[in-house]
């Protein structure tokens, strides 16, 4: 094996390792945020339509070296481990997930300001994104976006 081939193989291994890490990290983020969305909306089909929107929204909201979606997932998993040692957020039941949020939301603003902002908005952002989908509209029996309605009653 010449040096060029050695370099090529090493690069391939490194790339494969890195990609594997990326895939695992992505899978972890995805499963944690899937669990978050199901926690908020309790509908699997709605959750499936929502998680990609949530990831996109978070990552666009505050770009950085680590995607905000991954940061959010890490925080949730960290809180999950406090509630049930060794568990991820996705492995908690509904009551435990609520407890994980309660732990995070009891952190004092002074010490955890930005975390309080992120965690405080995760659930309502998720709900907004979910119920802006056609599946969400169907669940809410919403007629959908229209240019007007026959709803005028007159004047008080």
């Amino acid at each position, binding site marked *: 094996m010449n040096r060029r081939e050695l370099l090529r193989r090493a690069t391939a291994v490194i790339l494969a390792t890195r990609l594997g890490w990326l895939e695992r990290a992505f899978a972890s983020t995805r499963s944690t945020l899937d669990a978050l969305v199901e926690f*908020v909306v309790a509908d699997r089909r709605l959750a499936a339509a929502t998680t990609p929107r949530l990831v996109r929204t978070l990552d666009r909201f505050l770009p950085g070296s680590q995607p905000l979606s991954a940061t959010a997932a890490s925080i949730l998993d960290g809180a999950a481990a406090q509630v049930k040692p060794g568990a991820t957020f996705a492995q908690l039941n509904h009551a435990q997930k609520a407890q994980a949020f309660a732990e995070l*939301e009891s952190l004092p*603003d002074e010490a955890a300001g930005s975390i309080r902002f992120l965690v405080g908005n995760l659930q309502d952002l998720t709900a907004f994104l979910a119920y802006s989908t056609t599946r969400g509209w169907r669940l*809410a029996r919403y007629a959908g976006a229209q*240019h*007007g309605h026959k709803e005028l*009653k007159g004047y*008080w």
Partner: protein
Amino acid sequence: MVLATEELDSITGRRTVHDVIVVGAGGGGPVVAKELAARGLDVLLLEAGPAWRDPEQEWSHNENTANNPATGIFRFGPGDRTQAPWARDLPQNCFVWQTAGVGGSTLHYFGNSPRAMPDAFPGYRELIPYYEWVEHTLPVQTAAMGTKEELFLHAATGIGLPTQTAKDISRAACRPQENAILQPGGTAGRTSKTKQLVYPRATGCTFCGHCPQGCFLPLRAPLNLKAKRSTHVSYVPMALTADRWTRGRAATLVPDAFALKVSAAGATRSVTWRNTRSGALTTEDAKVVVLAAGPIETPRLWLNSALPNPNDQVGRGLTDHYLDLVVGRLSRYTGSSKGATSAARADFPGYGSIEQVGVAPGLQAQGLTDSNEPGNRVLGTRLQRLLSDVDRLLGIAVITDDEVLPQNRVTLSDVMTPDAHGPIARVEIRGRTAATLNKREYLGTRAIQLLKAAGAREIVRMNWAPVLLHIHSTMRMGAVVSVDWESLAVDRVFVADNSALPNALGGPNPTLTTQAFATRTAERIFVRYFGGDPWVGRESPMSSIDDSVTAAVVTGGL
């Protein structure tokens, strides 16, 4: 005239001395721009966000497309939506709902235009002619009723509230909203068929239910005849055509222009801005500068400009009405997702106000899952049940007369990295007075009473975390600016946005009051620095829907 910065440079060369530069084309800035352009002054109006070429094509009723805080058309960020929104340092659970772009937060506002509580600040009586001027210009009209408003007002009378019929609030009472929304005419409100909802068959509000997504209806109506009177369709078109509908001088609008610095030397005031698309910097001079970038960005701009702050009051005293949401689920149809977002209210002098709010499912779900108390959020199957029919909900927003506290403030972040426009704003909500909490509690209780009277089977009160939708008093009158809203520290620099309000106005929604003050500010600028005469009370205002304005808008290509 709408110009890109480069075009402005090529026409004027650098450092033209304008009469007035207005920083910000949101709720307040365009009022000053229109009034002074109508007097013949050379007005340059800067807006950090984009201009809108064709809202019927560019905007959407879809909540995610319009209101997503990161990617939405009405986010707080640059016009190039492939870029991230502009960041704020928000060190607590809160949500800031502001829009960048011509029209600012009036693009997503509900158009509610009540006057302030009469005892909210000294000099209310003197402001009434300015209220009347704005109410005629926008115009403000009594809201038409749909099912949700009928339910709200019947229930309000059921709990003993009389109906208020005058614009000035004198007692605890309910009423239809005075809204900056044109009343429905023709087919509007009488059909859901798009083909029948085209101007001129339909005029005014079509009851689409999409006030927060920006109003581009009725379809094919001239820009100044769209139903909801954001400044984008009222004051800005009047400013840009002031040479056509009156003997004024057309203002020049420069969008995508983020102001970085205001400076003062002798009698000259300067503004330096950055083109958010190209990154180019431009500086222009003026005899007077008016800051109207909003109650977060105006103090940020002041502090980033290192302008004098002798009493350390710039940015302090933020009030936000400590909003809350109470929602009832009824067994009958409410039409909650249809019609103007809020068309009925009740005011309680000494406490604040409550108003009926009905939105599409996305914002409804967001409101039901926000809370200061983790266990109070409506989640999972409970959310599904409550939202199982959006048109059986009746929502009420609690608008508290919250008190000024110095620790609630805007300052410069020393935690987050500065952006291309300098150190970013840090917004801290650090406390509430006992009186504020008591007022909010009183209003929440009244909202629950009202929903019970309306027949609600299930009621949830959210105890929202701060939702910064009405933001005021960060450059407040008496502490940072005079009663004319001129800086106490730097003459020829004025403020004309909610930041100059002295407080939370006793509870009523702030935009109309800011616009009334901004009208007076324009008049004082004209008298003090340009030797002119006052006009309010002496002349008749021109409505933004007058035929002459429509002709000016159409012939001006807006």
